[in-house]
């Protein structure tokens, strides 16, 4: 039925009365008499209109508007209550919205590629190394022999080149891409074109494709960039295209064809030059089938190249899974945590509403007595609750917006797809849905208990109502739930705090205080051979050493906790079959390295001025290597060979044992590292470690000038303090901890407010009784015992439930904690005690109020 206005209906009644009057006139009545009779005959016009009105389908809209107006008035009338309720809900919904927007961006939203569910990444496996990068000739073989891929490509995100032509030379991240990479991903260039197959080989005209970020940042998204020439390491490259935003391909500014490097020495079959495979599975092919096919191809390659490919396999996994696997446990923990915060917020507001509906009993009783239906009262209360939740939701979305911005800006390490984290339509829909559910959840109990009241008692003016004991029980149960949830969060946060504090106390093996790091890259065309590289780097080191405030400086091919090169080696006297050689970290260093990062030489000698080119080839090993490969022997003087037992290289002689240094992160064990003099094996990129007595920012400019005095085209790249570098390795753990601690803090405050509310209510309800007790001679301490018992029972049950809940949920934590059991007793007990203390603290004020009751006035109060 279409909507009919009230006016339309009135018109109809008027027309009816006129028609009736017409008839009566026809029958001979006078006009006046006829009109009067017609009106009388119709009866009560207003009543007819009302009956029309309340039968209409649109009446609920009108009632709802009325209820909302009324609810808004009620909220304005008690601003303190409304403020607390709205803020509480805003915190809950805000936290949920923020976490959901992260979950949505990182885990739920599809990758920006065509049919991303069929995309996989593929790597190689070496004995002792489960994920190695891909050998270029192996990749070529995959491409030819695969039965499972529609297409397979490689990319290498780790290269760097110096871009010149601007004000300062700078290092840019260069990605190597096979010509088919963007086709395999299903990624059409934003402008321009992709690589052609004939550009993907050495010795052709050099072309470059810009990443979207680099294009926006450097060229403001201008299309005119096409056809421009960029100078990279002194070579000209023509810009042929720009990519749309990508995900999971590393931080690459510029893409060049991988084939340009096909003749590099590192692109031979036995090398793994930082390439990663990307495949598009044929429709219906599973990961297992793919891995079986890769194993088949690997066996063929091994058979054909027994020397280079011994022991080398290949494996792959879903592109998306690889991207999110490390963050998933943290996000699922945070999701549960944030839901608990929301539940606690709901419980708190429900508690508030219960308290208020008790004080509003008189009003409600009056409404019921005047004939309002229970349904109508419930819908009135419900619209109040929904309104609170809605306003809370809007404020919460604002909070979430700020929180998400802050998170994205701090760029927490280890969180992929930061650019995809937005407050978008999906997130807003989520927030709206959560608000409605919150409103219903919060309002359910109070609305039910509010209408189940006795009409007589409240109207008689007695402050105490018959609903009291039931309400008190209900509120006690809510408080128990709240305490339990808060305890679970507290335990989770406690475990993470302990875990992170263990991590930060882990001895990395170096003393990072006062150490600054940075990279220097020598372009291959200007520094083509070892001598020129050695010369330039030596000179740079000398200049840096003389900078005021620098106490020592050294070159190193890798930084602590960031090893980047591994070699298979053979220990003289302990040959392994080909392909089974142990893989050890390899680090080239200059003379002052051990001093600069304060490593200790445990046996043998340190770095000598004589460890240079042409002298004996020497090597230092760390404790792990010494223990593992020279058990019960003195390693000094033993010889190590790079590669297989039949390698033709000159062996290195062990001259010292140094302490272990963690090679990946604070949370992982060291694998063993070999240190070699840079002078005996120079390379064209080296890290610089500088130990200074001055702050990092003050030393950098003169250091830069020192480098520039050697070659003005040399930038110092990714400079940062070693301390920062080390803490970054546990960045994700620290981030998760901070977020969970924040949630636990909010939960604790809300729980305290909840406990306070329940106890204050309990005291208010018992004021009369307490007055009598005091009048009969009870001491203040008896009153304290009375109330404390109440607090302890309610909070105690909550603590018990919370402990059990935390045990049950400890599985969520197992992958997130370091050297702390997810059921760590101390954390559990400590958190429980902390929560009980907070509960007791929250009960202090109402308890004090109870002990100060004046018996006379308390008994007269009703």
């Amino acid at each position, binding site marked *: 039925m279409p909507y009919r206005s009230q006016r339309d209906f009135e*018109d109809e009644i008027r027309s009816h009365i006129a*028609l009736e009057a017409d*008839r009566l006139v026809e029958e001979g009545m006078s006009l006046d008499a006829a009109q009067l009779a017609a009106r009388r*005959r119709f009866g*009560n016009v207003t009543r007819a209109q009302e009956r029309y009105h309340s039968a209409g389908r649109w009446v609920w809209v009108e009632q709802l508007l009325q209820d909302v107006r009324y609810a808004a008035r009620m909220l304005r009338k008690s601003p303190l209550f409304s403020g607390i309720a709205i803020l509480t809900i805003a915190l809950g919904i805000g936290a949920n919205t923020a976490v959901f927007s992260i979950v949505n961006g990182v885990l739920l939203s599809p990758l920006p590629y065509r049919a991303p569910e069929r995309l996989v990444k593929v790597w190689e496996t070496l004995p002792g190394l489960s994920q190695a990068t891909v050998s270029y000739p192996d990749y070529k073989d995959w491409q030819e022999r695969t039965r499972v891929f529609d297409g397979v490509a490689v990319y290498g995100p780790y290269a760097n080149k110096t871009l010149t032509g601007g004000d300062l030379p700078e290092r840019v991240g260069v990605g190597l891409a096979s010509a088919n990479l963007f086709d395999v991903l299903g990624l059409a260039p934003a402008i321009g074109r992709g690589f052609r197959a004939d550009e993907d080989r050495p010795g052709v005209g050099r072309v470059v494709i810009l990443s979207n970020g680099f294009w926006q940042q450097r060229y403001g998204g201008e299309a005119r960039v096409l056809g421009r020439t960029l100078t990279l390491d002194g070579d000209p490259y023509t810009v042929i295209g720009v990519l749309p935003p990508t995900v999971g391909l590393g931080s690459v500014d510029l893409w060049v064809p991988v084939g340009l490097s096909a003749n590099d020495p590192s692109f031979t079959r036995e090398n793994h030059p930082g390439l990663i495979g990307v495949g598009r599975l044929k429709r219906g092919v599973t990961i297992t089938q793919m891995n079986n096919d890769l194993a088949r191809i690997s066996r063929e390659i091994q058979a054909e190249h027994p020397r280079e490919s011994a022991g080398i396999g290949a494996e792959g996994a879903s592109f998306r899974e690889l991207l999110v696997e490390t963050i998933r446990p943290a996000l699922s923990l945070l999701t549960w945590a944030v839901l608990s915060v929301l539940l606690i917020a709901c419980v708190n507001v429900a508690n508030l509403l219960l308290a208020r509906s008790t004080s509003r009993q008189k009003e409600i009783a009056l409404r019921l007595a005047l004939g309002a239906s229970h349904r109508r009262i419930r819908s009135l209360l419900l619209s109040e609750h929904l309104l609170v939740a809605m306003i809370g939701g809007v404020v919460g979305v604002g909070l979430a917006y700020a929180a998400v911005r802050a998170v994205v800006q701090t760029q927490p390490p280890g969180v992929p797809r930061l650019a995809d984290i937005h407050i978008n339509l999906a997130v807003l829909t989520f927030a709206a849905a959560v608000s409605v559910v919150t409103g219903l959840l919060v309002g359910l109990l109070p609305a039910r208990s509010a209408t189940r009241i006795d009409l007589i008692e409240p109207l008689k003016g007695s402050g105490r109502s018959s609903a009291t004991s039931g309400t008190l029980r209900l509120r006690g149960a809510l408080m128990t739930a709240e305490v339990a949830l808060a305890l679970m969060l507290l335990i989770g946060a406690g475990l993470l705090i302990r875990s992170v504090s263990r991590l930060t106390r882990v001895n990395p093996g170096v003393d990072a205080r006062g150490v600054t790091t940075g990279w220097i890259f020598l372009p291959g065309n200007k520094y083509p051979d070892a001598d020129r590289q050695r010369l330039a780097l030596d000179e740079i080191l000398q200049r840096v050493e003389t900078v005021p405030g620098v106490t020592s400086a050294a070159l190193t091919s890798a930084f602590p906790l960031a090893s980047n090169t591994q070699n298979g080696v053979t220990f003289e006297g302990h040959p392994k079959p080909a392909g089974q050689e142990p893989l050890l970290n390899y680090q080239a260093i200059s003379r002052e390295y051990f001093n600069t990062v304060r490593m200790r030489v445990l046996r043998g000698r340190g770095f000598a001025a004589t460890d240079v080119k042409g002298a004996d080839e020497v090597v230092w090993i760390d404790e792990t290597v010494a223990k593992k490969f020279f058990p019960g022997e003195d390693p000094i003087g033993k010889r190590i060979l790079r590669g297989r037992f039949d390698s033709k290289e000159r062996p290195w002689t062990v001259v010292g044992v140094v302490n272990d240094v963690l090679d990946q992160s604070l949370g992982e064990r060291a694998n063993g590292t070999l240190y070699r003099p840079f002078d005996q094996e120079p390379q064209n990129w080296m890290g610089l470690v500088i130990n200074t007595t001055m702050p990092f920012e003050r030393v950098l400019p003169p250091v830069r000038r020192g480098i520039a005095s050697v070659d003005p085209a040399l930038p110092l790249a990714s400079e940062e303090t070693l301390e920062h570098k080390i803490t970054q390795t546990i960045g994700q753990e620290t981030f998760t901890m901070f977020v969970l601690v924040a949630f636990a803090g909010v939960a604790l405050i809300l729980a305290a407010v909840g406990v306070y509310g329940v106890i204050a209510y309990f005291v208010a309800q018992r004021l009369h009784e307490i007055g009598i007790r005091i009048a009969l001679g009870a001491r203040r301490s008896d009153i304290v015992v009375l109330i404390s018992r109440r607090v302890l029972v309610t909070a105690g049950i909550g603590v018990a439930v919370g402990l059990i809940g935390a045990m049950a949920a400890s599985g969520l934590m197992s992958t997130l904690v370091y050297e702390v059991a997810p059921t760590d007793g101390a954390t559990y007990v400590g958190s429980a005690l902390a929560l009980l203390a907070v509960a007791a603290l929250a009960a202090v004020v109402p308890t004090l109020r109870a002990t100060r009751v004046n018996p006379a006035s308390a008994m007269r109060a009703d």
Partner: protein
Amino acid sequence: MSTRDAEERDTLLQGTLDLLILRTLALGPHHGQGIARVIQQRSGETLLVDHGSLYPALQRLESREWIKGEWGTSSNNRRARFYSLTAAGRKQFLSESGRWNRLVESIARVLAPDPVEG
């Protein structure tokens, strides 16, 4: 209408008004006053429609989409809302009147004078 009038005439049985309206509209479109008039006339002036309750009934039927109302002009040139039966309304009328007839028959049988035994 005096109190006496009302006593002499039968008031409508609860629930029969809907059926009577449907019956009236089965004859053709009418406005509200016309419907009341027709019912009264066809009942030999014995059934008196409470004009006040006529409209909620009309509204009820309209919301069930058994009848639909449209503004038109009456025979004496007054604007009036004319109601007519929809297809669903016609169906409803047929089944409803069948039910009614069966009910009346049953009641009549119950009320019939005691059969002479033997």
